[in-house]
């Protein structure tokens, strides 16, 4: 995949994460999973998934204007 083809799916993934942040299905669920309340465990895992999406953005969808800005600084 080219950088451009990665870009929009990854930006869409950020929007999807914003929707998944609203875990209404766990709203009144106080079960303990791995010793933690399931609603808390979900949001800790959410942080991990968010980090993974940003890893993909940094690797595959880093904006060309920022690369150009760094190159411009290197030339000065």
């Amino acid at each position: 995949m080219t950088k451009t083809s990665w870009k929009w799916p990854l930006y869409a993934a950020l929007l999807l994460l914003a929707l998944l942040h609203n875990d209404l299905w766990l709203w009144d669920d106080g079960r303990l999973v791995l010793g933690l309340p399931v609603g808390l465990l979900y949001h800790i895992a959410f942080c991990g998934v968010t980090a993974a999406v940003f890893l993909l953005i940094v690797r595959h969808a880093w904006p060309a204007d920022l690369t150009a800005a760094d190159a411009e600084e290197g030339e000065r």
Partner: protein
Amino acid sequence: MKLAILAAYLVLVLVIGLGSHRFFRGTSEDWFVAARTIGPFILLVSLFGAHMTAFSLLGASGEAYLEGIGVFALMASSSALVVPAVFFFIGTRVWALGKRHGYLTPVQFFRERWESDGLGLLLFAVQIALLVPYLLIGVMGGGSTLTQVTDGQAPPWVGGLVVCAVVLTYVTYGGMRGTIWVNVFQTLVLLTLGLVAFGTIVGKIGGIGAAMERVAAADPTLLARAGHIEPWQLFTYLLIPLSVGMFPHMFVHWLTARSAASFKPTLIFYPLCVALVWGPSVILGVLARADFPDLPPGAASSILVKMIDLYAPGVLAGLLAAGVWAAIMNSFDSQVLSVGTMFTQDIVRHYGFKDRMSESQQITVGRLFTVGILVVTFLLSLVMDRSLFKLGVWCFTGFAALLPVVVAAIFWRRSTKWGAFASTVSVVVLWIFFVIRGWESPNYTIADTGIMPVAVIFLVSAAAMVTGSLLTRPPAPATLDKFFPREAQARGETV
């Protein structure tokens, strides 16, 4: 012993902050933005440290004590998504324009973007005014921590005064480099001691499973969100971390980066760092309900220190209290530095006082302004009895609602100074309106729907930006080419 450890910690912080002065290059760019030389790892740690405050430790644990595990979703996981996104889309662009044109403050950037001194002055006043409640969180957090550590012997004003004095000393002597050095040290202290505190307390209770079972027996509602948080509240809280895009101290920290690529580790590791700090804070706040069942809301902000004192007395309590102070001073110093930087650059130098004052007189005036702001903050801390969490949310609401201003500045060529004026004034008016309405009701939401005031203020601010811009003339083409160089280059022009 606990006091001796805290005192030793403060001396260590001072030594690091003052020691950085040996590397001072003698230029204002070095003083205000560390000569834009900060690399990837230090940028991650300093940005994270500057963002984590007493709000993240004391406020988060206090609110979790009252409202349960949902606090993590409200502020932590929302920040884990929104803050790196703001760094990625806005911070990197601000860095690029700042480096290209030599900006040192947000006001310089906005003033030139829309060719308006008046707008710069308005944004200066609004950003400083909104920063006062944020500073207040640090002063109050420092005070309550010392009071708790000394078993009530030191009144809260003593801790607040000590935090102000120590931070003011190393910030005014070490500049941005000193602040970043101390930030890095304190963030590592905060992360290490935070995890030690968490492990020690949970271990003494018998493990995380046993600890949560105790909470389930004491108040099972704390383990879910129903009854504590409304769905609309969670949805609209996602706007609160947008505040990071308009915090003046974060803006100045972006400018310290060596390159755009230096932001990459920050984007990846920020969500994990948020979970590492907020997770233990929220869990300890919830666990405290089994040990301290009936604390009033005002006392909840010190619940973390109470837990440390209960389960890890003596030397460890002193070390862990130092960790709490690390979190407090970590962001407090960046805020104090940005206040002084903005006054010196945006008022003293911009309005021509530099012709009538020597370099040292300008710096002295900047320091006096900073001291004045701290005195006001300190006096407010003596009469304020709000929870740190609620105070923080009101502060973040104002900054978040200003985000359309920076978004328009970077991405919308057609935006105008009148749009920015309309947006900023709408934020000021609505923020004051909602603060007055919500002041007596700690859990205030719009018509009790769960919708946070930030949602309304943000939408009105964005609408004002668009309407005001479309009705007025955009800046001169030369100004637009300066801020949108790629478009100019595409036309074959050199900017």
